[in-house]
């Protein structure tokens, strides 16, 4: 739940607002789409929700934690456990194989090797990419890379999945597949998903859409 969130930067003595008086409540199990033109603050809002970025004013409650009061370490602990990120440009680590990419978040949660193996194995199964586990990201198509990206985001069993234009770099067929996947995740597993998107078509997969314009929520519907 976000209340009266303001975020700004000061350029040449003037405040430029990145987010202005954002009030937004997302319930568990929702599939929210954030839309809006370029520069309207969509990605910034997503980063704030994901606790990658701070804000200057307002209150943000995440799973009954008051985020603005948390220390850096606690905040990172919180998102490490509960939030998964999917990026437009996939942001896989080129030097690591598919398997290792998916495994990476588990390394940072101090999970035992055997356990990690099982978890990654399950994930590879679920996404039908067992055969590709030893390939490097550059050897995959965009759609496959994004699939790995989502698998990596889900490996820690987060309660919230954040996706910043997950289909932006994909062709329409690949994009549809990804959106279908999100839809299934939301419907069948009750995963809370917040995605930023340009396309009405993608927003239609969600249960609710928020429109941003000039750092404000224009339509909360």
């Amino acid at each position, binding site marked *: 739940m976000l209340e009266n969130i303001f975020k700004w930067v000061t350029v040449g003595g003037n405040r430029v607002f990145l987010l202005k008086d954002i009030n937004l409540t997302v319930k568990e199990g929702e599939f929210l789409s954030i839309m809006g033109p370029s520069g309207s603050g969509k990605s910034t809002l997503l980063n704030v929700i994901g606790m990658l970025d701070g804000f200057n004013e307002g209150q943000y409650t995440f799973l009954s934690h008051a985020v603005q009061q948390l220390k850096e370490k606690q905040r990172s602990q919180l998102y490490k456990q509960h939030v998964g990120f999917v990026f437009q440009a996939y942001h896989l*680590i080129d030097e690591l194989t598919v398997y290792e990419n998916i495994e990476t978040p588990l390394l940072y949660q101090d999970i035992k090797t055997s356990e990690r193996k099982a978890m990654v194995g399950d994930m590879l199964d679920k996404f039908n990419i067992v055969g590709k586990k030893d390939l490097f990201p550059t050897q995959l198509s965009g759609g496959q890379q994004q699939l790995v990206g989502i698998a990596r985001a889900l490996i*820690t069993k987060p309660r919230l999945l954040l996706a910043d234009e997950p289909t932006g770099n994909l062709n329409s067929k690949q994009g549809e597949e990804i959106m279908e996947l999100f839809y299934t995740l939301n419907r069948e597993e009750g995963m809370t998903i917040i995605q930023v998107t340009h396309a009405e078509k993608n927003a239609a997969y969600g249960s609710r859409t928020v429109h941003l314009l000039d750092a404000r929520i224009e339509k909360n519907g």
Partner: protein
Amino acid sequence: MRFRKERSYGLINLLGLSIGIASAMLILLWVEDEINFDNTYTKKELLYAVRENQTYDGKVRTFDNTPGPFAAAVKAEIPGVVNSCRTAFRRGILFSAGEKAIYERGCYTDSSFFSMFTISFLEGSAKDAFKQLNGVVISDAMAKRFFGEEKNVVGKTLKVDNSRDVVVTGVIKEPVENSTLQFEWLAPFEVFSAVSPWVNDWGNNSIDTYVELAPTASPVAIDKQLAGFIGKKSGSTGTQAFLFAMKDWHLRDEFTDGKQTGGQEEYVQLFAIVAGIILLIACINFMNLATARSEKRAKEVGVRKVLGAGRKRLAFQFIGEALLLSALAVVAGVLLLVLVLPAFNALVGKQLQVGWSNPIHFATLAGIALLCGLVAGSYPAFYLSSFNPVTVFKSQQSKTGSAVWIRKGLVVVQFSISIILIVSTVVVYQQVQYVKNRNIGYNKENLLDIDVRGDMLNNFGAIKQELLNSRLIENVALSSYETINIGNNSTNHNWQGKDPSKSVLISNRMVSPEFISTLGMHIVKGRDFRVDTPADSSTILITESLERIMGKDSAVGKTIAFKGNNYQVVGIVQDFIYGDMYNKSDPVVFFYAPAATKYFYVRMKTGANPEEALAQIQSVWKKYNPAYPFVYRFVNDAFNRRFKSEMLIEKLSQVFAALAIIISCLGLFGLAAYTAERRTKEIGVRKVLGASVNSLAGLLSAEFLQLVIFSCILAFPVAWWVMSRWLQGYNYHTSIRWHVFVAAGICALIIAVFTVSFQAIKTAMASPIKSLRTE
């Protein structure tokens, strides 16, 4: 932002290269000074010192001294020798004029000295200088000390040793610092031989002889004639004279078994190589940073290629950039050089100058700029210009496998060199300490050595009593020679059962009876001399090594005949080290003969304030010797001076090891910064996935630490090999212990961690949002 980043790369490059160039130039100045030793003599190629190889017990030893009559005889009898002179150098003769009294070093010599060494006279002339026996030629510096700015010094009178007057007959320039012969005054040799009649004897070797050959003469042929020359005159066939060329005086003055084996030259060569290595390290930085940045410049190359630039043209562009930077670095390097030269001079004890007017220096600088530019620019130019524009544009990040490997290889080279230098520095230090801490057979701490002057010998009893009364002085004694020097030696000692076929070289020391106890030497058998017992003047003390030569049983009670007198051995002294500090010293005989001594030893009490003790000695000195300035030496200092060249190597290797490491670290720093930047995206991703700052910093550092560890593995055997060889050159040497390697490795690692982790932590702390934003 981008511009600033590029600029900081440029600065790191420039700084590394200019430090490298400045240090290379320092070394080259030092090398130049060493090579140019004795270059002021126009007859350098024709001048020779005469040395002697003497054979004792099958071993050949080389000495500087020759018999007094040698010089005249060799000129008269050996064709090709056009000139010769005898010299007797004296360290400190007291000169006085009015209130001023100063000890000055100088030399008694023949007037041929002037033409041989092409001495130019500022006042007076070579022709008239030694016409009168009481004439003296002094340096301009000495003239200034006595007569200030006054001109027309010729004709002025100076008093020598408070006893006789001499007249200045000429003023000459003081010898420049990098010449072997150093003197402030020159006086006729006859003055010296009149009071030292033994120098006219063929059997006495105490005079330095110099000869000048005709330009056509062959030194090899003359050496052949010299070999038996002294033997014919003196009858001692074991002595062979030979020529020692002036060009070898400074750099190749070591002899082993009668053969010239080198000397300082090895160090000069070594440091010339070090200069090259430091430049190379600096160039490596340049190459590494340039290729590392290449991924950024790949786009520029691609665009230029698309616009029609040929590969050659691009290569020229990059080499041109490198040359420009190295020219800038040379300028910065010269500025640095000017800044640090005084400190460097203090360190090496020289007065090196930048030499702005020397065209060779400018040529060298230009050469360095060109070389660095080409070396540093060649690989990046070759590498960058080879980019294919299509692949460059396609993939954001070009695969740069070979460049990465070469970069890593170069870092390994840098760190290997640095580690070798660290190990070498430590081993050199340990060796110097090892020799300095060698048990030399007496206690050299708190021990003063003072020249006997004036009436001191007659007043010795009173001086001794007054000093002992002061409670600051433990004991005093007299000796004919400084304890660390060889002094007088001969083979004319005889004893019952001596093998007549063997000649044993034995040092003679005339001492006062307090000597052994004052110096802290150890009597191992028998007794010491008895103080105030003139009857002991027919007794002697000998060292253990002589006792062994004299037979199996104790030598106490045996008799040794020397110069027609019989002496009874009353005590055996533990061997002590003198002469060559790395070798065993010859046997010594101590005679009870205080009247024949020249050095006054004072043992201060341990814990006594040296300044108070010195003041005390000075006041006693003033009382009994008012006409002579009080000058003293600490035996410990004299001992340390024996290791001058080793200590110089020690200091130089420390400085240059440090510089090599600094330059390597600059490179590593730049590379780490670059790598961190290249991996920003990855770091961002990992951070979002929950990586902590620590694990990220570790990830970034690990890559470099592997390189450093690999460098250690490479460097250790090399360092071990080099330093073992160096130590082999010393008879008395330490061994290389494994701690040195561990310490050097840890040291390199710590320095590398420190350098790299700064960048790593900075990157790991950065917010991931920026790096993950999709453009």
